């Protein structure tokens, strides 16, 4: 049976991460930073990587990591979702790391674990596990050409892990970011700024080919989808907390608005959704940690459930704050945009439901 709780180690980890983020990534600073040339805070990233070792959690000690698991990574993702801070954690510590672990690329793993290297998987953020191998980039020999739209965390990456379609079969390449042209995309979620990545006969090092490359990509996307659910959980919980706090303190009609039954019921519904989302996200993280054969189902279940819960929590947070929730200078819009973008990231709920139909022998007709 899966362990759906949080261990003492995980709670202790949560505490350290939360303290750091409270200190360095309060929402007002996060908001201000989104409209600067440096949306990612390098000092924060350095603290997360070299100080706390958070990028090394699922990496073995032999490869320079913490020798923990994806469960611990999921807790970090929750806290990052809670703070909505802009970091390349998803791209580097989840997607690229998942790929590197399966490849057994010790050099890359060591760099990622220590934070000396940052990488990302060069796919559109919307790329879902179970979808067709992307063909935006094609290669001839080791020369890659093409444009991948809306890639997350490429802006601060040193290394890009690039899926490419060859003359006869797919492959994966490692490409230095200096060989790519990065064009910023005006992003809905300013805390996860996207770029279009272009190659023009760029030189890459092939790291896998054929069916194995497709499987590897899918496994990395599955890991990403499973961990993203924890980020969505963290964001949803924070929205719930903000809403409850507001309902207790905001007075209209001579009483706290939380004393109105209609609002109590709505926030109770959000709580119920978040409670279930927690179980689902924990299950997905636990499956990853044990390399359980149910991981693909767990990941799609997690995305299909937690995505809408996070969006709902954020939307209710806006509405129950009334006018102030509609303003720029209030944090809730950061969560709304993160939740809605995450609902598209690594596959929409609809796409994951369709995928589950295939995995569960529940065909459409």
């Amino acid at each position, binding site marked *: 049976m899966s362990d759906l709780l949080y261990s003492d180690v995980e709670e202790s980890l949560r505490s350290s991460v939360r303290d750091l983020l409270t200190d360095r990534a309060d929402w007002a600073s996060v908001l201000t930073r989104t409209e600067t040339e440096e949306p990612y805070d390098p000092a924060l990233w350095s603290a997360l990587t070299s100080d706390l070792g958070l990028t090394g959690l699922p990496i073995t000690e032999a490869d320079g990591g913490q020798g923990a698991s994806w469960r611990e990574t999921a807790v970090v993702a929750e806290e990052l979702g809670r703070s909505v801070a802009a970091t390349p954690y998803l791209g580097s510590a989840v997607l690229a790391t998942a790929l590197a672990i399966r490849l057994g690329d010790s050099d890359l793993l060591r760099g990622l674990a220590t934070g000396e290297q940052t990488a990302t998987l060069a796919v559109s953020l*919307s790329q879902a596990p179970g979808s067709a191998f992307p063909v935006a980039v094609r290669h001839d020999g080791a020369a890659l050409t093409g444009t991948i739209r809306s890639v997350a965390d490429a802006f601060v990456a040193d290394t890009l892990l690039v899926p490419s379609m060859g003359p006869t079969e797919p492959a994966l390449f490692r490409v230095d970011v200096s060989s790519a042209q990065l064009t910023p995309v005006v992003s809905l979620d300013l805390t996860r700024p996207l770029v279009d990545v272009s190659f023009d006969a760029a030189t890459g090092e092939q790291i896998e080919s054929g069916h194995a490359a497709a499987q590897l990509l899918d496994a990395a996307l599955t890991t990403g989808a499973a961990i993203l659910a924890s980020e969505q959980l963290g964001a949803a919980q924070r929205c719930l907390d903000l809403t409850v706090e507001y309902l207790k303190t905001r007075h209209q009609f001579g009483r706290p608005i939380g004393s109105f039954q209609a609002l109590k019921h709505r926030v109770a519904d959000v709580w119920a959704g978040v409670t279930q989302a927690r179980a689902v996200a924990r299950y997905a993280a636990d499956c990853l940690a044990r390399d359980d054969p149910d991981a693909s189902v767990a990941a799609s279940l997690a995305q299909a459930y937690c995505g809408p819960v996070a969006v709902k929590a954020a939307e209710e947070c806006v509405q129950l704050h009334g006018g102030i929730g*509609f303003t720029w*200078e209030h944090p809730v819009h950061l969560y709304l945009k993160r939740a809605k973008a995450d609902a598209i990231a690594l596959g929409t709920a609809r796409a994951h439901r369709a995928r589950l139909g295939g995995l569960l022998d529940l065909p459409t007709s």
Partner: protein
Amino acid sequence: MAVTADELRERVAQLLADHDPAGDRLGFLRARFDAGLAWVHFPLGLGGLDAPRELQAVVDAELAAANAPDNSPHRIGIGLGMAAPTILVHGSDELRTRLLRPLWTGEQVWCQLFSEPGAGSDLAGLGTRAVRDGDDWVVNGQKVWTSMAHEARWAILVTRTDPTVPKHAGMTYFVCDMTAPGVEVRPLRQLTGEAEFNEVFLDDVRIPDSQRLGDVGNGWRVAQTTLMNERVAIGGGSTPREAGTIAAVTSAWRNRPELRSPGAHDELLRLWIDAEATRLTGQRLRQQLAAGAPGPEGSAAKLAFAKLNQDVSGFELELLGVDGLGYDDWSSDSWSTERPTEVDFLGRSAGYRYLRAKGNSIEGGTSEILRNIISERVLMLPGEPRTDKDVAWKDLPK
């Protein structure tokens, strides 16, 4: 004897003969007002002819056929729809004569100073103070969510004149000169990036008693007229089938087959049906309101409109996949200087539609308040026990 359609046509013909519609726009509009053809149901001398309200359509049609300029009603909605009816009913002759023509021609733009940070849904809880000082009132406070404040010459303003009585009894309504010393307007940035609205700070602003509308302490009753007109204005626009936010989705579906999936198809049609039901309801409501006074049924239209916009825009963003991850313009450098004059749903990105739609269930009466109105005033269900109606305003928990 009542004015007839034929008489109106004669008057329009006379106006066109005396004033070239292709000439000086403001001159034409002023002449139209003076001829009683601005809003025919208004009294003589105030832009009308005491004519039946339905006959306005006759005048508008005749003038449109002659390519006469209009008063850009979409730009001066607050003045036309909210301030004017209030001034007409509650204003002194002097105020009506002074204010109504430049309001109608658009020479003077109006804004509404009602909501405050502490008084949103509970508008009657507002606290901007007006204290009598000789022939004037001295006003201090802060208003919020004020459209057009940065362009307005006048405002309709509700203040607290007596904090020692229950809240509904201690308010007074004024017309406020927005150029008076002490009035400060600041743009209010919203989650879409730009600033449609403003905060307005009132710091020892002096308002002559002659600019009061209605009796001292009667401000709430005066405000009711204004508010009922606002709710109708937001919910009741005229639209053909597949207009509004649903158009972006149906268009994307038809033009981009790669976006389609069976699950999305079912949801698309569900939303199309909701859009059509909302559209037909709006049409029926407009027919009902054509000659009458606005009633609570307008709340249903606004409720449905907000939900529809939110459901459709939320669906659209996820349908678009990678395109849904982008945005058009956060107005990072321009939000305090470039002020949008209207909401352009279809001209902007899906992300904008999604975010801006969040305001539809908050502005002009939240969907929660509208549900209360429906259940209590239409369905006549008993209200919840109130703890604030008989307490002095100053003693209310805030």
